[in-house]
């Protein structure tokens, strides 16, 4: 057994198989006959087995040849019908096939890789995906804080990137928009864990609209799980609704120092202050209440954003492109194996 395994491993032929086959077929050479006789000497039942195999082969050889019951001539209509019957999946499988099970594997890999590259590229162009080192190292987004506050229960890593510098008013609107998007994703990830009143802007209590952080403190104190993130997510909506036109909730992108949108941004900046990123004045009641809310319910741990594996976007895209090329190569190899 071990010898056979070694022979197979190094690609060496097992001469006994060739000899036995040739002996059964009656065309063994003298060396092969000698080898088979030696084998028979070692194994007494082998002679009987080989005789049976010879007789069996003679019976199989006596089976009459089968003739085709009809003509299998091909017509243009048959070819056209066959081409029309091919489903999209079967066409793909046919392209990738020697066997459909093998065929779909490189096809699926290539498609997934190509879709990944496309999504990342689109995200990069539109700004949804941003893994530039500056934005990640200089600020903590609301989503990141949210992740920490919820002790990692439900996170949205892909939404963690927050472009823009919080210290730059010109980019605050963008930052806020991104935070809104990130927070929405995080809130979605939380799912049923977030109370309806906290996740729906319209149903938040009026005092929350006037003082979002105060409302945050109240709701945080009244529950086991800190609901700060959900309130924070909706704080801009709540804050806008009393002062702004009640029909327009899309003013997130605008920057207004007097509006509560700015208040929310300030709130975000205060988190940075707590983390020591920005020097805070320490006089804000918002800050103190926020700290109180956090101190009550959570152990707030700010994780540096460069923890773990952070793959630059271009490297990810390059990896996916390489994967797609490898899959296409596998496809070509399979076609070659099939002889097409």
């Amino acid at each position, binding site marked *: 057994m071990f010898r056979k395994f070694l022979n197979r491993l190094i690609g060496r*032929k*097992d001469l006994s*198989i*060739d000899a*036995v*086959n040739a002996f*059964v077929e009656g065309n063994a050479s003298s060396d092969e006959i000698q080898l088979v006789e030696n084998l028979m000497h070692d194994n007494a039942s082998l002679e*009987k*087995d080989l*005789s*049976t*195999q*010879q*007789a*069996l*082969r003679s*019976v*199989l*050889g*006596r*089976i*009459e*040849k*089968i*003739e*085709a*019951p*009809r*003509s*299998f*001539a*091909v*017509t*243009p209509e*048959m*070819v056209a019908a*066959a*081409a029309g019957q091919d489903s999209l999946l079967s066409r793909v499988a046919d392209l990738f096939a*020697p*066997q*459909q099970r093998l065929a779909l594997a490189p096809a699926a890999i290539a498609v997934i890789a190509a879709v990944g590259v496309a999504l990342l590229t689109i995200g990069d162009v539109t700004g949804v995906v941003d893994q530039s080192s500056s934005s990640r190292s200089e600020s903590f987004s609301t989503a990141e804080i949210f992740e920490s506050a919820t002790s990692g229960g439900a996170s949205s890593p892909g939404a963690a990137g927050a472009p823009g510098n919080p210290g730059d008013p010109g980019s605050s609107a963008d930052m806020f928009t991104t935070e809104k998007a990130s927070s929405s994703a995080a809130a979605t990830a939380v799912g049923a864990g977030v109370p309806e009143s906290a996740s729906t802007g319209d149903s938040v209590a009026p005092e929350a609209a006037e003082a979002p952080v105060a409302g945050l403190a109240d709701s945080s104190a009244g529950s086991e799980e800190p609901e700060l993130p959900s309130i924070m997510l909706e704080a801009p909506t709540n804050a806008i609704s009393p002062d702004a036109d009640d029909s327009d909730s899309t003013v997130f992108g605008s920057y207004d120092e007097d509006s509560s949108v700015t208040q929310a941004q300030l709130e975000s900046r205060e988190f940075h202050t707590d983390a020591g990123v920005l020097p805070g004045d320490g006089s804000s009641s918002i800050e103190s209440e926020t700290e109180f809310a956090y101190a009550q319910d959570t152990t707030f741990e700010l994780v540096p954003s460069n923890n773990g594996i952070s793959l630059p976007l271009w490297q990810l895209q390059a990896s996916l492109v390489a994967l797609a090329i490898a899959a296409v190569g596998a496809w070509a190899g399979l*076609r070659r*194996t*099939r*002889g*097409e």
Partner: protein
Amino acid sequence: MTSFDEQRLIQLTRDGDYDAFNRLVVEYQNAVFAVVLRMVRNRAAAEDITQDTFISAFRKISSYRGGIFRAWLFRIAKNASLDYLRKIARWGETSIDEDIVYFSETVKDDSQDPVADALNAELARLIEHCMGGLSDDHRYAMVMIDVEGYQYDEAADSIGVSIGTVKSRLNRARARMRDCVQQDRELLPASMRL
């Protein structure tokens, strides 16, 4: 048909000549149908698979890159047969027993003895039963070499494996057939009852 004629017909087929391809069909349809029928053991399915094999061969003739043309056809037919067998194994679409092909009428016997004919019929049924118990790969090797009488290289080319692999599969197939048929020793010829 000479090899040159075959290559010329293949070239004409590449240009879309149906008549040229149908001359190839006439040449090889018996061989393809026989192998397919031995594999799937269902006459209606074998006809469908054989027809599909030739249609597929016509559509993919541009991918034929030389070698034994018949082996290339066998490869297409074998893949189609295995797909069919996998399908019926997965979904149970057709019971093989409904239209099973026995060798009982196809075992040649020169004697005019009705008893010998009956024994041959039973023997053929036994062989059919035992061949049905082989794996697809082993059965294909046995059909190609022992039943249809093709050479190892053609069988290997049609499967897409080395000659050594074919020999190994055939060796195991014969051993399993021997074990199977010896369970009904009374049906075996005297030479097989040793």
